[in-house]
């Protein structure tokens, strides 16, 4: 469903992502972890079509992002780490804006918007301007908008930032439920517990290079540690790489 081939990104002389090769299957929840500045957000932005790779390709549901960016993007629900939105729209208007942009029919929009607003506890705030929302509310609004068009691929950068514990549990369940229905989830996170609980496979990126991929058990073997949690595995892998 998501295929990254020799994906490379350079900022001037700085190599942010180095020859990344990765395939994520349909219905899989894939976690992407790494230290600060490792290249997670850059990779996420290239998958979302926000950033052009220096080399390599991104394929979404068999569609090449560089060749058919609009079609590829229409398959994605993109959730960034910082919830920048149109502050002068209301929550409901923002959902309508997104629905129109992704070509969601009016009748589907009406049902999905109501469902999503209730699911993310935003129904009471839907007629208020976004500028009056808290950080967590904006994050929840972005999520409800990203799911409006039933995306085949969900790309999430730090999904739990700003969310309260109830919302974190809800989002974790939601992502797994969507994956069971056939959606592919690609998420980057610093919260290793979230990755451990939610993801089928995890990729560890360090200094722009993918240093390990697999289930938690696979990573434990790779790090040559037994019965350790993901935090210890992560530290062991990144220390070895450095």
């Amino acid at each position, binding site marked *: 469903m998501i295929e990254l081939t020799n994906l490379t990104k350079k900022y001037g002389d700085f190599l942010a992502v180095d020859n990344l090769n990765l395939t994520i299957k349909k219905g899989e929840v894939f976690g992407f972890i790494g230290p600060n500045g490792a290249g997670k957000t850059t990779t996420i932005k290239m998958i979302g079509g926000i950033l052009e790779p220096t080399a390599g390709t991104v394929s979404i549901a068999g569609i090449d992002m560089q060749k058919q*960016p609009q*079609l590829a*993007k229409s398959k994605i629900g993109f959730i960034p780490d910082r919830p920048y939105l149109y502050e002068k729209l209301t929550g409901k*208007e923002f959902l309508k804006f997104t629905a*129109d*942009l992704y070509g969601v029919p009016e009748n589907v929009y009406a049902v999905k918007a109501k469902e999503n607003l209730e699911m993310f506890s935003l129904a009471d705030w839907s007629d*208020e301007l976004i500028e009056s929302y808290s950080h967590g509310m904006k994050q929840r609004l972005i999520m409800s908008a990203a799911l409006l068009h039933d995306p085949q691929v969900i790309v999430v950068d730090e999904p739990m930032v700003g969310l309260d514990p109830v919302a974190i549990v809800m989002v974790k369940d939601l992502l797994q439920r969507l994956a069971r229905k056939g959606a592919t989830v690609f998420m980057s996170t610093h919260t290793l517990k979230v990755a451990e609980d939610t993801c089928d496979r995890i990729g560890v990126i360090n200094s722009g290079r993918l240093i390990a991929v697999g289930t938690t058990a696979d990573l434990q073997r790779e790090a040559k540690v037994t019965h350790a949690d993901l935090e210890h595995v992560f530290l062991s892998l990144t220390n070895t790489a450095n």
Partner: protein
Amino acid sequence: MNDILTLLKPRIWPLTNRRLRRRSRCGSKLKLFFFASIGAIFWCAVFVVSLRILSYFRGIEEVGDILGYKLLSMILIVSFALLIFSSILTSLSKLYLSRDLMLVHAMPVPSYKIFIARWIDSTVESSWMVIIFTLPIFCAYGIVYHSGAFYYANTLMALVPLIVNASAISTLMVVIAVILIPATRLKSIFILLGILFFVVIYLAIRLSRPELLVDPEVFDTVMVYITSLQTPSSPFLPSTWAYDSIRAGLSGTFSDGLFHTALSWSFAATMVFFLVVVADAMYFKGFSKTQTAASRLFKNRLTDGQYFNFLPGPVKSFTVKEIKTFLRDQTQWSQLFLIAALVIIYIYNFKVLPLDKSPIKTVYLQNLLAFMNMGLALFVLTAFSARFAYPAVSLERQAFWLVKSSPLSLRSFLWIKFFIYYVPLLILSEILVITTNLLLQVTPFMMVLSTITVFLLVPGIVAMGIGFGAAYPDFKAENPTQTVTSFGGLIFMIVCAGYIALVIGVEAGPVYHLFMADIRGKSLTYATWAWILVSFVITFTISLLAITLPMRYGENRLSRLLI
């Protein structure tokens, strides 16, 4: 005191850190030189014009000095009013709305110290430009009145308390007002009131036809005029104290000068003391109130998008979003008032033109003015495009990721922006040109020519606004509408002016021949027809290029932008 200095350091250090930025941004030296040159030219122009006006005044017997002093008094009153208005907006932003305030208030520093540091910052930021650009006027006064070193020193000493007084009065009003009205709303209200005030004054002055003052026929006696000039300003205004002090400096009366300067300083010191006492009691309360969520002023459903159902989904979504965002931003309303005033004055100017008094035959003058009016109207359109079309892309702010991640190409996004601004600006330009032509009673030929030329040029000017705005966006600007003062904005205005001048220049010759043939009832030669045809083709081609090239340039640059 150390805490206050520390709090001011984040404002001072970026100035000294410029050398670090220069290393990373190669074009910055050129930009700095460009802006410095424009500033220097403007400064010199103010100086030369002031010098000429004051020399002229001094040459007039009896009333020369009265005129010079009256002008000085007006300059100080206007400067004081500008300082007050500027300080209100700056202090609101600095004290209540800046993004770093949360961080600063979380630090172990008493709120009154934060207040003082912010107030100093606000005073400097709100006044430096007013002072720099009034200095050449005061220098001109010194030269024309042959004043000595005391005048210059005393003028500087009189200007400092004028700034402090304006800033202290404004900030005091703001600190009290924020307790009653949330700061975000207060800023919009002040901007709205300020612009409305300006519009009313502007309209009142223009509609009173000040040009008649130079017409001796309307004056019964010279004495009435002189008496009206000698009316003193209010003794309670800080600008009056500054005026009295500077005037004394000009005439070389030291004791008077020092007395009025000391009066200004003593009031400034009292105001600052009073301000700090009030701020200590009220500033933090006001800041806390600002942290609460803003509620909506009006909950209208006028623009729910049902009128745009004929548009494709992405086009509709951006159109509706753009209109709603525009209508809900109160600062935009004030701009609309300003535009309405400018349009009224523009049309009114044509209505009161004394064409019958001109020695040139009226029919020529009417049509010559109509031809020039095309250019003028297009320059007005450039100003509107600079205000609305140019910042259109930057107005996406940091939500631009939504556009980049959406299934909408950047090209479509820019064309949507183009059409959103093209339609109203076209209507506005055509109204301007047709109304003024009707007032001028031009020939049908000139009416058709103006309408078609404007119709051809408006898309090019709007495309330049959108294209250059996309090529030089600033998604992090606190006020994106001010991005037109950036390097990209200047390029946009220069290219636009060149485009208008080129088209008017290409059209001038053929239009003259066509017009004269029409007036004289003669037919044109084949050579003239060929010239007219070539001119039209050139105008059409330039206009097509003016639409496509900037849009493509903007798209290319925007697609390479890292967000």
